[in-house]
């Protein structure tokens, strides 16, 4: 069961990577990398079960949080050309 899961995720990872390398626009690549991040989270979680020691789900948890930061950073750089500007703050809170 876990073996099938891991193989399916690795195959999907290859497909997503093709999109990340081909992607006509930057947004396609970013979307593909973001989606690959989700797949890697599942893959790391499932790999522990495959080897019979599901103790290292910490890494999956960390990825779930860090992947978001990277995506937001790329988008902010792409929109503003600057990482530190208060551009997202135009809205009143």
């Amino acid at each position, binding site marked *: 069961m876990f073996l099938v899961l891991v193989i399916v995720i690795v195959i999907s990872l290859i497909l997503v990577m093709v999109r990340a390398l081909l992607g006509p*626009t930057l947004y396609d690549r970013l979307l593909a990398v973001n989606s690959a991040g989700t797949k890697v989270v599942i893959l790391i979680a499932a790999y522990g079960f495959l080897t019979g020691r599901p103790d290292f789900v*910490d890494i999956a948890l960390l990825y779930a949080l860090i992947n978001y930061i990277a995506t937001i950073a790329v988008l902010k750089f792409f929109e503003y050309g600057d*990482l530190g500007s208060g551009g997202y703050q135009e809205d009143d809170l």
Partner: protein
Amino acid sequence: MLKRNVQQRHRVVQVITKFLIPMILLFAFYVQFHGDFGAGGGFQAGVVFASVFILHGLIFGEARTRLVLTPNTLRVLMSLGLLLYAGTGVVSLLLGGNYLNYSVLLSNPVSGQHWGIFVVELGVGITVAAVMVSLFYCFSSKRNFVGHISHPIDENELNSDG
């Protein structure tokens, strides 16, 4: 480039980030103090801790992050972590052991090792977090006087690449 207009508001991202920031902080502390029992340790925890402040700087503007964690605090923290590490060694020297031999810190050598590792990992975490956040401060404010103004990004230029 498009003119900034009404669409350019990121309320969803802001709200979710407000929810996420305490969670990531909590996870950083977990990685820091649970490193003895599972994966993790000072270096990883410092990086995760720094990424919280980087996320705040990305979403709410770097100026506001500087109010929370001022550059002067960062300078102090950066040195404090290293001093904490080196000072542990000095303390163990003064107590009659070798440099960085934690067994002499307490009467029981095993719990002395526990406390030594705890303090040392804390020092590593503080230094790494402070260095990472100050790197973000440095790189996030681009200087126009370096030589050229960063050109506006053109999507069509992107579409035309090979």
